[in-house]
């Protein structure tokens, strides 16, 4: 965020000041503008040659889902300083929750919208369930326990075939609809795009507000120094649980959306690799910086899933000789690995390092609204 956005927005100082005061509104406007700009961008070369606008919009939707996961994980890792290597498990639980109550597998068909909340609740419950007995573990022991949990969940989903249809997963999941107005479909990515973008903005606002709240301060405190936090009266177990629950419930909500988007959940979708790539996005984006990790995740997803996958098409379009003969698909993960290493070496704090925010919420607003 720092350098680029500063440079970009220098001429817009009054605008920035306005949005600083009205951050939530600012986020809404910013996300809305971006969400309009991105599809327009896909109309111009070289992006138009890669894939159709609809496919791009679908990719942006998935990237935003991924970015929401990163924001959620950032609460656990970046704010509270707890290393969670099994984040995909909560994502899975959200997805399976929706699959249970809205698919031919169980024959139950509950509407989508309330299930968004239910997914969050399920995520939070499992977050607490995992967190409660393990949060007294020291940093990296917690990491391995979460990693273990991240493995146990898909293995269980895979082998408890009576309840989950095993490896086949649960298919035919209901798509969301607004009765009488809009039925989501798979070939028209726009409604889902809208839904995900709105949710994205909402989650971002929520996270920012939490971060600046009394709860957010306890996270800062336990990340900086647990013993000092306890001696300041912070119940560190509760603070950690809150961070865990918030992170897990975001993953749960996003899991519901994801399940409704692809209409199938299988255990393989939620393996360790997912946790790891979300983690990579968080660290690369800049731990602790919500916009940073969201942008990081968004870009990394597009890089990994579009740019690398479409290198062949891209090279063909540019008509670069000889390269036409090379199958870039074979190198995509070598490239990905090299990029991960180089980026980390170049910017160990992440691309958008968390800048210590000045406290700017109180005096102006209070003065205006006349608290006393």
């Amino acid at each position, binding site marked *: 965020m720092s350098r*680029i956005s500063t440079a970009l927005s220098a001429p817009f100082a009054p605008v920035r000041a306005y949005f600083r005061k009205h951050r939530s509104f600012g986020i809404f406007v910013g996300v809305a503008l971006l969400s309009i700009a991105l599809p327009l961008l896909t109309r111009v070369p070289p992006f138009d040659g890669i*894939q*159709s*606008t*609809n*496919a791009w919009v*679908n*990719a942006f939707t*998935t990237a935003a889902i991924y970015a929401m996961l990163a924001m959620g994980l950032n609460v656990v890792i970046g704010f509270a300083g707890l290393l969670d290597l099994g984040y995909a498990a909560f994502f899975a639980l959200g997805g399976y929750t929706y699959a249970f109550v809205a698919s*031919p597998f169980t024959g139950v068909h509950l509407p989508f919208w309330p299930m968004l909340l239910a997914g969050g609740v399920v995520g939070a419950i499992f977050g607490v369930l995992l967190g409660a007995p393990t949060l007294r573990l020291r940093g990296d022991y917690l990491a391995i326990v979460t990693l273990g949990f991240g493995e146990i969940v898909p*293995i269980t989903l*895979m*082998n408890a075939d009576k309840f989950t249809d*095993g*490896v*086949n*997963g649960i*298919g*035919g999941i209901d798509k969301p609809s607004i009765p009488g107005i809009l039925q989501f*479909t*798979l*070939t028209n*990515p726009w409604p889902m795009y809208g839904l995900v973008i709105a949710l994205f903005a909402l989650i971002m606002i929520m996270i920012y507000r939490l971060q600046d709240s009394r709860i957010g301060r306890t996270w800062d405190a336990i990340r900086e120094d647990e013993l000092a936090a306890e001696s300041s009266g912070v119940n560190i177990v509760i603070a950690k649980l809150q961070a865990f629950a918030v992170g897990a419930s975001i993953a749960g909500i996003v899991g519901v959306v*994801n399940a409704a988007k*692809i*209409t*199938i959940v*299988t255990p*393989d*979708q939620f*393996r360790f*690799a997912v946790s790891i*790539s979300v983690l990579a996005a968080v660290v690369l984006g800049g731990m602790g910086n919500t916009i940073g990790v969201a*942008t990081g995740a968004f*870009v990394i997803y597009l*890089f*990994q*899933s579009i*740019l690398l*996958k479409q290198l*062949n*098409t*891209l*090279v063909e379009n540019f*008509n*670069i*000789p*000889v*390269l*036409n003969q*090379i199958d870039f*698909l*074979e190198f*995509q*993960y070598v490239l990905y690995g090299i*990029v991960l290493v180089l*980026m980390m070496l*170049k*910017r160990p704090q992440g*691309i958008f390092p968390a800048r210590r925010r000045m406290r700017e919420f109180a005096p102006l607003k209070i003065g205006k609204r006349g608290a006393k």
Partner: protein
Amino acid sequence: MKVFNKKGLSALAAVAILAAACGGSTASTAGKTLTIGISFPLNGASLASAGPARDGALLAIKEASIEGYTLKAKVLDHAKDGAHNPDQAAADMLTFVGQEDVVAVVGPFNSASARAQIPVSSEAGLLQCSPSNTNPTLTKGADGEALRGGRAVNYVRVATTDDLQGPAVAVYAKENGAKKIYILDSTDAYGKGVADAFETQFKADGGTVVGRQGLPTGTTDFSAAATAAKAAGADSIFYGGVTSDGAPLFRNALAQAGIGALPFYGADGIYDGTTEGSYIATAGANAENSYASQAAIENIPGKDDFNVKFKAEYGKDAEGYAFAGYACAQIIVEGIKAAVAGGDVTRETVRAAVVDKGTVFETVLGSVSFDAVGDTTQRIISLYKVEGGAWKFVKEINYGN
């Protein structure tokens, strides 16, 4: 942002400089371009099995010529971190849907990816032909109906479903004198599915299953399972899974446990030729007395021709799903030709031409036609045995229509 673009572009530029020596672009003949999408998991472990299918399909598309049209192929890879990824598979299908000149798609390879793709392609009315999907629930019954969402059939496959292959091997194993079988599967959709079907049939025929368990893909240590099979007193072994799941490793472990001489049964997952990395190559001498099946006829008309063409194109032998991938593309090309003959080439006309129950396609797999839900009517299971370090055809079981 900036970092990414710079890196990405400079990487591209670097490669471009490296390659600047050669020139030339693909010559394009006049006429409308039609594209056939190819959607497989093409990196990591998946590449070994799905790669030949892609090569086969590409070969068929290259060979085909349709008057007045240019035929192109577009390959998308939906493997992530070494395994097929349904999410990416669905996204790729949407990419194909969004590209207007794509009239049909070859793929996917795995059943889970098919489950993610079929709803998308079905909504778009885009024809899809899978060379390898064998999971019955993709097409049959309520599950299949749910995937199609009540629309017309747009998904066909040239492989016979698992519900035939497993039982065929079971019948054959019984004939071979198997009484007490130990079953191991790879816990994934294919491995477990085929092992389940085998178990049901074997028990129905009066056989005893002395032990059954699963070891997931990625397992390298099969010694405990082998010792367990020995302790259970098995007289035969069945493995549900593919070579890369560890079939030859299990076979070797059985040999190390001292029961390497027992007959070892598998399905088409271990019928993968003799090249490097295949079941026979990896198990070596231990592969003797192994049995496998294939959901296709053995005496493919023009098999040798195909081999020659394939070798000329890729410099290696046609193996595994190369035939099926080729056949899928052949069928699609036939469908396009039918549509051309009808005067209107659209996704819908191509789809209608292929799923038409009456049409029989002459492919490298023999004569193929599709039933009401898009499954192949060529319901023949061929059985093979390892002899002298190669697969020998034993017999075929025809399940008819």
